């Protein structure tokens, strides 16, 4: 048994307001191992990583490396201690060159303050060669593909001679071939003795790369297991903490009138020739990997972009919404993917946030604060939004409750069509089930729901019908009753396998 060798989290605790992100997490990553950290959204993975990176300070507990306590006060200290991070959101400076990105914050400097541009390019060249990356160190980072930008972060970590490389969902925006390349690089690093901490909820990747797997759930460390001798199903159960509830056997009549119909809708290069229909009371899942064009499709229906060709019909009538206002007036609502950026106003109260779309559509001139307060309270109660009141700012709410606010503000407008883009991204498991329940209930009331999600279990659990998109095209349609993860995934990736 190896003691005190490796990276050790001891009783790490962190709360954000009322939300306990980590409740005393203790786990050990052996030096030289590839260790996976898995868990659902909201399980606390990101918080643990942020603590390791020095971005967030824990309320209690400590982090040790080979027995020595790490004082991680800032991201810089993390780097200096040899902890390299590869983030999901792909932090990079698009305006700097490749070499500039790799040495950002740690530029090689000659006497007199001059940048040693040539040396930095040469070092970059060497690192890129080592990774078998054919990238010009002098090229601007914005000219790189998503995959290369991801690998640029790995290269940056290598330039700092990291001992621990932390990767947070690094394959989210990569194609299979690109992911293969990344794994090859990671294998090589591990052979050189770099400790890998790999965070993902994609189990096949985890099983392919990692030696040991730690599961987090709701801020707790559930278990750490050896990859050998454990079945993926067991990990899934540990992540979810309960059996997934069976699909509610809702009968959507095939005779129900078609409410939303798209015919050959195109907006190049995002999506082409998309034809689909959603009946009254039906939940249609729109599945695809990142970059499949789902968000752009929903935004086009919502009037944020103009289509190049094709028609949108609502209850049989052709509509051409030129703005979200027009779409919303017609009865279309969109719950966008990024609630922080696209959904919420953090300078306004929960009340303002909840009533804004409805009031904007009604075109009232006056703000009737009392009436709005009553309405907002009713919405908070109805959708069980946990908040200290309706006159607080939404940044005090947890991710799940923020998402419920965005959902509730649109349901308050009594839409006929509800478009949802990744409705449970970054919310905890409890809120996820509640949001699913809300969607089911609203569909039962006759709203046509089109749910874009890359969360396959969610799509399977929620939808009556599943439409699979890939690279901007509809790949196929599956009745949810007969759908399995394999059949959906096969459609989503089939083109690639064929080629």
């Amino acid at each position, binding site marked *: 048994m190896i003691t005190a060798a490796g990276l050790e989290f001891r009783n790490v605790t962190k709360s954000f307001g009322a939300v306990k992100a980590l409740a005393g997490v203790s786990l050990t990553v052996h030096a030289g191992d590839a260790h996976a950290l898995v868990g659902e959204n909201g399980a606390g993975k990101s918080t643990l990583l942020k603590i390791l990176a020095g971005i967030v300070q824990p309320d209690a507990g400590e982090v040790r490396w080979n027995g020595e306590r790490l004082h991680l006060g800032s991201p810089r200290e993390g780097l200096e201690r040899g902890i390299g991070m590869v983030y999901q959101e792909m932090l990079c400076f698009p305006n700097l060159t490749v070499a500039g990105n790799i040495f950002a914050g740690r530029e090689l400097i000659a006497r007199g303050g001059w940048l040693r541009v040539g040396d930095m390019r040469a070092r970059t060249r060497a690192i890129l060669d080592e990774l078998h990356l054919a990238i010009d160190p002098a090229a601007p980072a914005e000219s790189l593909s998503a995959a290369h930008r991801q690998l640029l972060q790995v290269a940056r970590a290598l330039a700092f001679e990291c001992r621990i490389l932390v990767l947070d969902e690094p394959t989210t925006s990569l194609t299979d071939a690109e992911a293969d390349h990344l794994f090859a690089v990671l294998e090589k690093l591990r052979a050189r003795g770099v400790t890998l901490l790999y965070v993902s909820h994609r189990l096949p990747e985890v099983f392919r790369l990692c030696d040991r797997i730690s599961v987090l759930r709701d801020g707790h460390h559930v278990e750490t297991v050896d990859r050998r001798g454990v079945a993926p199903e067991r990990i899934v159960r540990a992540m979810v903490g309960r059996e997934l509830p069976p699909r509610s056997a809702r009968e959507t009549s095939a005779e129900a009138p078609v409410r939303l119909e798209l015919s050959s809708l195109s907006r190049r290069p995002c999506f082409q020739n998309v034809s689909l229909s959603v009946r009254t009371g039906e939940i249609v899942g729109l599945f695809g990997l990142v970059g499949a064009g789902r968000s752009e499709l929903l935004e086009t229906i919502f009037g944020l972009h103009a289509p190049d060709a094709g028609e949108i019909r609502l209850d049989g009538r052709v509509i051409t919404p030129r703005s*979200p206002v027009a779409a919303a007036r017609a009865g279309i609502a969109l719950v966008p993917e990024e609630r922080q950026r696209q959904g919420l106003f*953090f300078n306004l109260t929960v009340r303002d946030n909840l009533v804004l779309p409805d009031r904007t559509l009604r075109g009232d001139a006056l703000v009737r604060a009392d009436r709005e307060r009553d309405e907002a309270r009713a919405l908070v109660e109805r959708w069980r939004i946990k908040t200290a009141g309706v006159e607080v700012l939404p940044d005090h709410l947890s991710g799940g409750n923020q998402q419920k606010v965005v959902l509730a503000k649109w349901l308050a407008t009594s839409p006929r069509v509800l478009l949802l883009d990744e409705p449970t991204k970054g919310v905890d498991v409890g809120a996820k089930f509640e949001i699913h329940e809300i969607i089911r209930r609203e569909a039962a009331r006759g709203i046509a729901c089109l749910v874009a999600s890359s969360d396959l279990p969610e799509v399977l659990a929620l939808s009556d019908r599943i439409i699979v998109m890939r690279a901007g095209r509809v790949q196929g349609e599956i009745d949810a009753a007969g759908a399995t993860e394999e059949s959906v995934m096969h459609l989503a990736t089939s083109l690639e396998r064929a080629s």
Partner: protein
Amino acid sequence: MKRLWQIRELSTVVILALEIAFFTWWLWPEAGRTHPFFNGENALLILKYSSIYAIAAIGAAIVIISGGIDLAPGAVMALTGVIGSNLFVVHGWSLAASMTVGVATGLATGLLSATLIVAAPLPPFIATLGMMGIARGAAFIITEGQYFDVSSRLLGGWRPFGVPADWVAPIVMIVLAIIFQVLMTGFQWGRAVFSVGGNETAALFSGIAVNRVKFSVYAIAGLLAGVSGVVLVLVQGQGKADLANGYELDIIASAVVGGASLSGGRGSVIGAVLGTLIFGVLRNALPQIPGATFYDRLIVGVVVIAIVVMDQTLLKKRV
């Protein structure tokens, strides 16, 4: 108590009160003399001159709350003042007609900036920087270096609607401040301005007509700068091209001192008006302190920074 402090305007009132108390104490006269600073006549003087800044600062605050910036008000004030006084003095128009044209000119500059920002679309900083040059340049072209003497034609006790001339500027300012404070806090339009400034993307996704809101904001700022310019020539008595030189920075500073956040989404009309009064008191009192005259610009700069830093640390708000 903490709650009270969170009402941002209240802390501005407190700062203003402390400032007045300080100068009252500092400038306390020898026994038997009237106080040189703390008297009714001087208060009216401060109010009158602050109103010029305050009317434009209402517009500046609204623009800043919407997440934008307007660099043009100083130059627009000069242009509208010059046009109004030119029509009144040179062309012999009636006072009402010439000043209305002046105000309309202000609105026109606002509409032009708004069009550039919404339709071009240019960043507000660039569009209004250009507008600032255009307006100031037009003022010089119209005057050809002369000035138009408004006060000589107004002689004989000008009392519109029976209001003493000194009270005109403060009354116009107070009426406009109340109107726009109510519009910003009690009307959907005001909340739309706050929402666009707080999160423009979310505003778009929430069905708010973002472009229309932005357009209205710059149009209003132009209109108010126009009113401010007209009031300026009435107070100073002459129209000339270098009027209100550099006022835009004082106006923006007033809005910020009054709680407006340059990143948008925060601020208030009343706060901006109180901010202009803070500077108005400084401009009035400092010259009365022997030797302080040369320090007044420096002190104004220090005050801006000090108040905003205090605001940030005390209330933990973002600027």
